[in-house]
């Protein structure tokens, strides 16, 4: 098997190069599956011969207009910045740290959900000034490392690169190496400057890359036969409920984890995740380089997905027989309530706007509830994941199980397209997992469910949990209708009259009037 992940360098190739990730596309889900050629790409990832082809580069719609969005540095902050006993130094001007308070709130929520004691995040900004842009910030970085050690006595210190420091050429690798003996804990450089990748999810890979290189135990002395890695964010601990019957304990990575929990990842019996977009890199690396197999199965959403996922997990721990009984009893248990919800949501339409693999999971859950999905918006599309498992083609799994999605749009947080996206299909509510979009969509008369606790939809109970929440969400339509009656988005009538969300891309003459005025 090929080494899908290269841990020799401190940097990570970004997703567009590694996976062929795109952030602009519009068509049906079926078409995208065809164009993505997952199987061919998967063979290639597993070291198959060149003849298998890489799958050609996906066509990508470029947009002249982009809007407020996230970056890889922010992702690193929300991952590494939420470790309990490690410090994250953001080597940057202060603005790059201005979301720290939000990640602090997230950490408090996460710790509460996981039953861990409350604490603030351990964060430092080197707070670079104009003169540091000219003369370099290495001295400040060294000082920050010493301060990090003195203030927090951490188990490891991470250094995040940011746009400004990447442009001025700060050598964080050298400083890390040079300082490590002095402070006596791993110092881990993370090359997560925002402009390096067009999609923030590269930041996940950078965070995992850092811990894989410098924290995860390279030569585990023992195996923990009942420990399973779950690549997660801050979600409530529902994986324990799901996996306890198989005799497994969960090891959540990375948010809210401690140094020790990360270190022991190589001792686990397997790795799985709630989202292939997030977990692919870590799963593949643990499998290739630490011998911890990843669960090659559909994601644990909806009945069929959860069944298959549980079976795959059970196989790893030799509980094939037990799992069948478990699955059967679970089906029985949720059936009456599920029937109730299906009745309740009859004739309802939903639309999911999230990262890609997670969207596929969520749409499955909505489909189980009897809710139709005529459209979906994902913020990026990875034609293949790093794990590239045979059974991990999440979009194909979705379409094969629940049918095509006629309007499947890939577009990274471009709120201005929402009027057109909502015009094309019937939608009674939206599920959104990214800041900035829900409130915009809310102006259009549709209630939105900002899904913060990402574990809500997993497993059998996840279907019921989503059903319960959606009842409340639908009721909130009243608020959104009020808003729609009185408040207008900042776009002009011409834009509202358009039907193509990619009008600015597809109409070559769209700026003609402005260009004429400019004399261009």
């Amino acid at each position, binding site marked *: 098997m090929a080494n899908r992940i290269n841990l020799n360098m401190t940097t990570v190739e970004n997703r567009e190069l590694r996976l062929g990730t795109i952030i602009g596309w519009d068509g049906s889900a079926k078409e995208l599956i065809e164009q993505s050629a997952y199987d061919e790409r998967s063979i290639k990832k597993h070291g198959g011969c060149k003849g298998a082809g890489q799958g050609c580069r996906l066509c990508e719609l470029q947009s*002249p*207009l*982009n*809007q*407020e*969005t*996230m*970056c890889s*540095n922010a992702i690193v902050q929300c991952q590494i910045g939420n470790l309990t006993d490690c410090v994250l*130094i953001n080597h940057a*001007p*202060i*603005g*790059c*740290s*201005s*979301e*720290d*308070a*939000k990640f*602090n709130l997230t950490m408090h929520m996460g710790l509460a959900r996981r039953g861990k004691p409350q*604490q*603030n995040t351990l*964060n*430092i*900004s*080197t*707070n670079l*000034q*104009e003169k540091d*842009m000219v003369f370099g910030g290495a001295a*400040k970085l060294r*000082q*920050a490392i010493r*301060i990090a050690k*003195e203030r927090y006595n951490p188990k490891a210190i991470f250094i995040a690169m940011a*746009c*400004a420091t990447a*442009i*001025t050429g700060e050598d964080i690798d050298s400083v890390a190496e040079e300082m490590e003996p002095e402070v006596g804990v791993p110092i881990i450089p993370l090359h997560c*400057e*925002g*402009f*390096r990748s*067009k999609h*923030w999810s590269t930041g996940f890979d950078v965070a995992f890359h850092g811990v894989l290189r410098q924290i995860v135990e390279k030569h585990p002395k023992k195996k923990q036969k009942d420990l399973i890695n779950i690549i997660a964010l801050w979600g409530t601990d529902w994986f324990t409920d799901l996996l306890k019957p198989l005799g497994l304990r969960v090891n959540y990575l990375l948010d809210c984890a401690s140094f020790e929990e990360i270190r022991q990842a190589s001792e686990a019996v397997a790795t799985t995740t709630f989202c292939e977009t997030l977990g692919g890199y870590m799963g593949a690396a643990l499998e290739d380089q630490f011998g911890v197999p990843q669960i090659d199965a559909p994601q644990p959403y909806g009945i069929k997905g959860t069944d298959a996922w549980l079976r795959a997990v059970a196989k790893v721990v030799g509980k094939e027989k037990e799992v069948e009984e478990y699955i059967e009893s679970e089906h029985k248990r949720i059936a009456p309530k599920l029937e109730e919800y299906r009745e309740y949501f009859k004739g309802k339409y939903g639309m999911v706007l999230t990262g890609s693999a997670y969207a596929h999971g969520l749409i499955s859950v909505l489909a189980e509830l009897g809710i139709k999905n005529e459209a979906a918006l994902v913020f990026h599309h990875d034609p293949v994941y790093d794990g590239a498992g045979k059974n991990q083609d999440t979009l194909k799994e979705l379409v094969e199980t629940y049918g095509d999605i006629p309007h499947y749009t890939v577009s990274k947080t471009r*709120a*201005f397209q929402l009027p057109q996206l909502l015009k094309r299909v019937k939608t009674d509510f939206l599920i959104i997992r990214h*800041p*900035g*979009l829900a*409130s*915009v969509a809310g102006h259009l008369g549709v209630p939105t469910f900002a899904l913060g606790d990402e574990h809500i939809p997993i497993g059998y109970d996840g279907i019921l949990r989503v059903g319960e929440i959606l009842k409340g969400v639908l009721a909130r339509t009243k608020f959104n209708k009020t808003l729609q009656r009185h408040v207008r988005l*900042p*776009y*002009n009538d011409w*834009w509202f009259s358009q039907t193509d969300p990619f009008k*600015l891309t597809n109409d070559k003459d*769209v700026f003609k009037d*402005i260009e004429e005025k400019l004399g261009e």
Partner: protein
Amino acid sequence: MSEIQKKKPSVISDVRYACAVGATNTVVAIKGAVPIANCSPGCQLKTTAMLTFENGFQGSIAAGGGNMPSSNATENDVVFGGIKTLDNLIKSSLKIYDGDLFVVLTGCTGELIGDNVPDLVGKYQKAGYPIVYANTAGFKGNNLYGHEVVVDAIIDQFVGDYSGEKKKGLINLWFETPYYNQNWRGDYQELARILRGAGFDVNVLFGPENPGVEAWKRIPQAQFNLVVSPWVGVKNAEHLQKKYDQPYLHIPEIPVGEEATTKFIRQVVEYAGIDKKQSEEFIKQEASIYYYYLEHFSEFFAEYWYGMPSEFVVTADAAYALAYSKFLADQIGLIPKRVIITDNTPAKFRPAITEYFKNNISEGVSIDVDFEEDGYEVEKLIESVEFTAGKPLILGTSWELTLANKKGALFFEISTPSSETLIVNRSHIGYKGALQFLERIYSASVGGK
């Protein structure tokens, strides 16, 4: 303090402000204005997260938040220059937004790669588009600094020259940095209400009562600029003085409570030289209402025998640290134990603020104010306070929550960031706001807390 700490680190933990490019929110506070963020992908989400979300969840509006155009620089832009990307962004913004004014704010990336933004924007200005640019790289300063830069940019490139008459009684209100203090909207309204009540025509440039960009066009006509803040806006007023020969009155203290507000009104009226009849009538009426409520409140204050705070600590920006400390110390009789100013107040304003806390806060009260932006040090400063009388009161940010719990203190958030508070419409200043401030403090004291 250890050797390392003593070197006065410039590093910051637990940040309490955003950077200059966060001044996109200053633009959002002007009705009909559209910010165009010329920066890297995460910059706007982060700064806006801090200012509009993790700050009383006050939210955004119009072309703010998720609707904000942003160039989201890529590697390609960094290597080959980002002008083409910005040009496309400007065209698209002009094409689809309903905007009366567009403001391009350039962050670290654009400034470091040396894109010629003035040249590009100039092309649109020449063609008659209402568009301006501002240099707001994050390494140049925080969002308060960025706010002042944006204001000057709009004045110079949008308001333009003026040689007409000035109108007596018309004042430009320069007050707080929009979206920075959690109550800024309500506070703008209360201050505008007070000044109108006193007989002024108030030109409100930001917030709920801003009529739109036409208010900005009116700036040069005003009799004078009123700056109500220890330092924010002084730079702009100085600029206006030079540009339009327009004088300014600088009042560092945001008035809270009847006595301070009445004094404030009289000072502005005196300066303006307008007739005092209306202002005195207004004062009389407001004062009578204020004391009608205060007398009711005094029953609680006198008879509540389950304990009340006596000592307090404040950590906030200069403006609110000063305004709230003054009110609590001077009007209520709470004892200030520590005041920490966290907004990176420019050095030239610090002596005056220090002096104010030493000698002007209230008779018999004097305190050494600390200027500290590093949250770790802020926490240490609070931790070292020895409270000696009952339950302490900590007014600060969400970073202090854990510490406040540890200290068994009454705690509420008055400054950025705040994630334990939801603000829809609230003010703690002037006549009306001061009473709300009392409600908030003593609601935290009552019941089985």
